[in-house]
């Protein structure tokens, strides 16, 4: 896979709810094996952007394409099968299932047939996030941090080319955050999966990501290296304009 190959491309994406424009004219390109941070104040439209990419919402205008193929508005499960996996801000695991069964869903259905040996893939994914010991534990009994790990394992098991992480650190303590950073690094290093990472904790993004995109009030106001972004005037205004986070 070449480094400059574009996986995901958003062109002039706009999303409106009633009279409220939540995303306006967003252009984003994600290349192979990139780790991109997506930040912005509350209400900037980050989660909506994820929901547009994964077709939970159809964009009001604009186009989403993946590997050159138009995927705007196709069913969410087909997007997953094409190779875009995601996690959720409010963690969404299958609570009555065991950890292993959760991951199997990704390996069987999310992979859309790409994974030949689902059981092995699921085992490996649990191993990667360090949950092997909790393999047969019911998700309902797991800690938040473990459930966040489990979501990532489930996504990894579906053998995606692109992983959308929606605030994977929300609600975690510092030790758990460090564990999460390690896992994210490892996923990228071992699997070469591109990631688009929405995060409230800007410092973590700045440390780990090679590129950062900033949204504010539905507009993309910056897109560059962490250093470029921190010096961007609009970004500083956007963050200063918000009560101290």
């Amino acid at each position: 896979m070449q480094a400059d190959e574009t996986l995901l491309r958003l062109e002039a994406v706009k999303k409106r709810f009633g009279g409220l424009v939540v995303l306006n004219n967003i252009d984003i390109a994600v290349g192979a094996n990139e780790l991109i941070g997506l930040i912005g104040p509350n209400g900037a439209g980050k989660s909506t952007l994820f929901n547009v990419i994964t077709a939970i919402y159809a964009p009001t205008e604009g186009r989403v394409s993946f590997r050159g193929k138009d995927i705007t508005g196709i069913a969410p499960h087909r997007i997953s099968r094409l190779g875009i996996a995601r996690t959720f801000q409010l963690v969404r695991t299958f609570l009555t299932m065991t950890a292993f069964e959760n991951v199997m869903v990704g390996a069987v259905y999310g992979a859309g047939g790409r994974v030949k040996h689902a059981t092995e893939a699921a085992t490996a994914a649990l191993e990667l996030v360090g949950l092997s010991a909790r393999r047969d534990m019911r998700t309902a009994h797991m800690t938040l941090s473990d459930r966040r790990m489990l979501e990532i394992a489930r996504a990894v098991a579906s053998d995606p080319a692109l992983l959308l992480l929606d605030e994977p650190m929300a609600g975690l303590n510092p030790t758990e955050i460090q564990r999460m950073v390690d896992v994210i690094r490892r996923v990228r290093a071992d699997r070469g999966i591109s990631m688009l990472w929405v995060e409230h904790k800007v410092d973590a993004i700045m440390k780990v990501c090679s590129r950062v995109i900033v949204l504010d009030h539905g507009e993309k106001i910056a897109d560059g290296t962490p250093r470029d972004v921190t010096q961007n005037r609009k970004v500083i205004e956007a963050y200063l304009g918000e009560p101290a986070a």
Partner: protein
Amino acid sequence: MSRPSQWIAIVVVAALALLPFLPGAVDAYYFSFLFFVFLYAVMAQSWNLVAGYGGQISLGSHAFFGLGAYTTAILWSGNYLWGSLYDSHPNIYYFDPVTMLLGGFVAALAAVLIGLPLLSKLHGDYFALGTLGFGEIVKVIFVNGGDFTGGAFGIVAPASSFDTLRPHYWVGLGLMVATALAIRALMRSRYGLALIAVRDDEMAASANGIDTLKVKVAAFAGSAFIAGVAGSLYTFYIFHVGPDSVFDLDWMLLPLMMTVVGGTGTLLGPILGALVMYAVFDLARIVVPDYHPVISGLTIILAMLFLPKGLMRSFVGKARTA
């Protein structure tokens, strides 16, 4: 199921299967009691598939039960299947597996036709309301179906061959066992994984590659199929298929009740629920014939107040769902 309980299950089923050979058994009351338990257990499994495992509360089971029953009766009365053989072999439809399966298929087909629009548009309570409306519409259509459905009177099937309950008992038992085994196999398969995923979290399921509509419609259709076959079996017992008897709301409410009392989303819950609830209803009917529904109503309320998770989960905290 662990090995010893598997053996226990086999022994119990074998004992039940041999019961009709016991002298006097066929004429004993518990024989027809067990037949009804089997029938209701099948209906409860049907509801459990779509609502317990699938998480979609359907209030339309009676419509599918009735469709299966009517299919059987119409094939019978209209001479549609094996037509030329019918005159010389009037019993040809009696427990004919093709007729019974067709009953299931017609119900399943209706479930797909109504399930596609309903399930793609409606969630949760709205789906429940939609299925309730669907049931009422089906009933009115059959009442107005003219000669084809026998109108409001319905269809009387020839009953001359019916002189023992034995075949009903065996077919009922077989259906109950087959349904339980089929659902057990299903829930251990990849489809079962998808069904539970959709029940637990529909959005996460679709974000993980599950075609949620397909899974839900399939569960709805599977549930309808089981109900349709049960309706077909009932036709061989009642012989008169009319809108008031086979589209009776009881065919939805009682199985629902039995499943919840036994334990939704468990394999044996529906069977246990059917046994216990039918026993309570029947005892009340025998002991206090003048006001037994009062007792039944009280039992349901008490069961829900004190055992809201159902017998299976209340007595075995560890009981697995899938």
